[in-house]
């Protein structure tokens, strides 16, 4: 005669009510899915934000006073208020001992009547050919490279703007309104940042073409051992300028995101509690339906501990099964979650927003198993306490 183990009995018991077991597993799977995706978002968002900030090449931006505070976010997305500050501020900032390097920038926008039906705007960022490429050394080129002369009639195109304008290295481009030709010397790879939509020109060329001698912003790279807080305070004392520190930007964005995250975590917690109640309900119903069987088992010599173990195991199988499906779903739909979250948030960094690794999967499975063990205690205890004669008699009476 074949000997049957307790695991097999538990498994077969669950198969007796397939739909109920499947729905319970799906409930747990949904909760696990939300949990993994949320923790993955928690990790991914901050990592991508840090990467975006690193890719910017500078940790602080000085802009002309009057630039809105939202410039913090606008800056990451590529916008900038067209207020000007004097050129010599760059030299003043560069002289500070905490500064590793500065790069002056001048943004200019023109109206292009031939963009769309009603015209559109075309933006140009004037950058210093010496300091800017050094600070943005992480920017990859699809073709060509940076302009070399400070006043060259040359341009570097971000990927998307190059695609829109169908420009390649060696092509000419006509600056709208000014009707001035520049030669394309570089096309950047797609980065997913504001750089994709930017046309870079040498700063002196922009100043000459647009007749503006001032700057719109200065990027500052601070030495690694510098006291950022003290340096920020020092920068705030500069006249007519406003300082946007990327540590502030990060804190602001993370605060905004944290608020949303707390709400979503609360929802996840509720989902887990509902799933837990579902498990308790399923197993308890199963126990009540099998009163007679449990009574017979006990009358045949099964100890309370054996019955407890059997019912508890059923709960654990449900939870681990749900956990596995849920984490699998989270892994499969990480990209979809990324797209959905990106469409909901006012600002999203360019990298992946959802980072799921083995550690997170194992942790979630651990949490789900623990939830399962906790949920199984009451039904198992209830089953273990059943008295054989009472259960058999109750079946006969009913």
């Amino acid at each position, binding site marked *: 005669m074949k000997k049957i183990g307790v695991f097999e009995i538990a498994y077969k018991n669950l198969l007796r009510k397939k739909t109920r077991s499947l729905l319970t597993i799906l409930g747990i799977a949904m909760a696990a899915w939300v949990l993994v995706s949320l923790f993955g978002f928690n990790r991914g968002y901050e990592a991508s934000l840090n990467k975006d900030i690193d890719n910017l090449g500078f940790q602080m931006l000085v802009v002309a006073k009057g630039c809105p505070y939202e410039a913090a976010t606008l800056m990451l997305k590529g916008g900038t208020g067209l207020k000007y500050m004097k050129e010599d501020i760059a030299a003043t900032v560069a002289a500070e001992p905490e500064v590793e390097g500065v790069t002056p920038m001048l943004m200019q926008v023109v109206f292009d009547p031939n963009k769309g*039906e009603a015209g559109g705007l075309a933006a140009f960022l004037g950058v210093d050919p010496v300091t800017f490429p050094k600070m943005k050394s992480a920017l990859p080129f699809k073709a060509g490279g940076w302009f070399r002369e400070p006043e060259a009639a040359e341009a570097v195109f971000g990927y998307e703007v190059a695609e829109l304008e169908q420009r390649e290295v060696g092509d*000419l481009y006509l600056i709208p309104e000014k009707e001035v030709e520049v030669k394309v010397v570089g096309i950047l790879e797609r980065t997913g940042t504001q750089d994709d939509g930017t046309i870079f020109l040498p700063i002196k060329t922009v100043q000459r073409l647009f007749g503006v001698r001032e700057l719109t912003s200065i990027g500052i790279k601070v030495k690694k051992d510098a006291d950022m807080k003290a340096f920020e305070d020092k920068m705030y004392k500069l006249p007519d300028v406003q300082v946007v520190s990327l540590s502030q930007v990060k804190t602001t964005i993370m605060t905004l995101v944290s608020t949303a995250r707390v709400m979503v975590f609360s929802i996840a917690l509720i989902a887990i509690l509902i799933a837990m109640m579902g498990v308790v309900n399923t197993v308890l119903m199963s126990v009540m339906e099998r009163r007679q069987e449990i009574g017979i088992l006990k009358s045949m010599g099964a100890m309370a501990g054996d019955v407890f173990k059997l019912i508890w195991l059923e709960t654990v199988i449900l939870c681990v099964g749900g956990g596995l499906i849920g984490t699998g779903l989270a892994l499969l739909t990480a990209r979809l979650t990324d797209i959905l979250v990106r469409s909901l948030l006012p600002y999203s960094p360019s990298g992946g927003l959802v980072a799921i690794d083995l550690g997170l999967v194992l942790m979630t499975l651990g949490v789900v198993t623990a939830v399962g063990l906790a949920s199984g205690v009451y039904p198992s205890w209830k089953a273990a306490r059943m008295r054989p004669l009472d259960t058999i008699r109750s079946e006969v009476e009913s």
Partner: protein
Amino acid sequence: MNARRGTRIVAGLFLSAAGILLTAAALSAAVGCDLNDPDRDVKRLFPASTGYKTLYVSIAKKGGDGLLRQIEARLGDKFSGLFETADVPFTMYEIYKGADLIGYIHGVNQKGTYGGLQVFLALDLKGVIKGFYFQKLTSRAAKAFRDPSFGDQFIGLSLADFYNYDVVSGREDPPGRVGRIKNPEPASEKDFRAALRATKKNLVLVDEFLLGNPHLKFFKG
């Protein structure tokens, strides 16, 4: 039985999610040429229309390299450069009046001398041009090219007319209706030819993806 149905539901969810992911990945690969404001533009080009349907197609998805070669042969020129590739998604609009299909709108990107051109065509069900316009144009002669008198010269032409036009040499042999299209600004000959190449490319793509190749019989290549 119930468990099997449940398994099917789960499998369906997986497949749907995977489908959405693959579509999203494909769409992010390259940028096509969409109408800036489809609701407004469709109504302007087809005043009698009551609705439209947007289709996303690409050479890579429909036929890969083989189809690309066929399309290049029908165009009479190779696809070239960083941005004219088989994986560019083309956005095509089917225009409806009630339940009836009444026409199509399609635009293509084309390299010009100083920047990109976006040439849109409004077509009837036989692929005859009913409307021509530049959604975007970077050119020294932009004003002249965007003048309605230039676009009006394309009305009534179809791919059958364009097959005799060589996009590389800019000549039509034997001379016909395409060759009679006047360049409003001779100094911008390159942009003029770019506009004609974009129109022919547009018509070839519409013939291939929307009309079922009724103009293939006119192709002598």
